[in-house]
């Protein structure tokens, strides 16, 4: 189980490296997606317990709710991650639209050249 946290932290480091060092706006957004994937993996791994079952009550489990609660994984990080995925796709669409506008306006995708004013 510790390997999950190692990979999650490596993904966050990889996303930060991409955000800091790459010189292309679409590559920066790809780095943002990788960073978010790392955070999602970390949160889901926090809620997992060894040998646990999914936190969904079906018919026959309903008679034994304390036994179900003793075996189920934590559903709170899953709800958080679901909200985070929804927000992530909205931020992605907004950032890609801004990238298209910036390319039309400046003719380049290099963020260090976006500083000059359009003459």
């Amino acid at each position: 189980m510790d390997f999950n946290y190692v990979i999650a932290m490596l993904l966050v480091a990889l996303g930060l490296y991409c955000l800091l060092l790459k010189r292309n706006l679409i590559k920066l957004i790809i780095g943002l997606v990788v960073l978010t994937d790392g955070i999602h993996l970390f949160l889901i791994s926090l809620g997992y317990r060894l040998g646990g079952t999914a936190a969904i009550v079906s018919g026959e489990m309903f008679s034994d709710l304390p036994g179900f609660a003793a075996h189920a994984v934590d559903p709170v990080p899953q709800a958080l991650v679901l909200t985070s995925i929804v927000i992530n796709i909205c931020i992605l669409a907004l950032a890609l639209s801004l990238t298209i506008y910036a390319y039309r306006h400046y003719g380049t995708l290099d963020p260090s050249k976006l500083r000059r004013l359009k003459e």
Partner: protein
Amino acid sequence: MAGMTVIVRTIARLLFPFTFLFGVYIVLHGHLTPGGGFPGGVIIASSVIMLLLAYGIERTQKRVGFLQAEVLESVGGLAIAVLGLFGLLLGIAFLQNVFPLGELGQLFSAGNLPLLYLGVGIKVTAGIILIFYAMLFAFRGEEK
């Protein structure tokens, strides 16, 4: 985007009903199995986008136009608001259940949860199709 070859068009036409039906299944069974309004809506929107990529914009827009998608999104939002006000009008909290609960595990059970998921599914479908149309038509006037 002008559309693709005959092979892609045939596969997209054959695959469209199954993808659409799977999305509807995910939305309708949101209170029983994994899934719900958002994933089902995304799957339905993906099936429409698949047609859009295979057949080009002009032919798809006759089926699902810009105005229709906007009206559908408003209808989805309105359904959620009306369901919430239903509980408020009867003197209990916002979005409180007022319908009969039914039997556990049946399709028509759990009060207003299936209706709520239906509203969320319609709104997500229309919203994602609208995002695609907006990104495709952003600079249409300047091109060519």
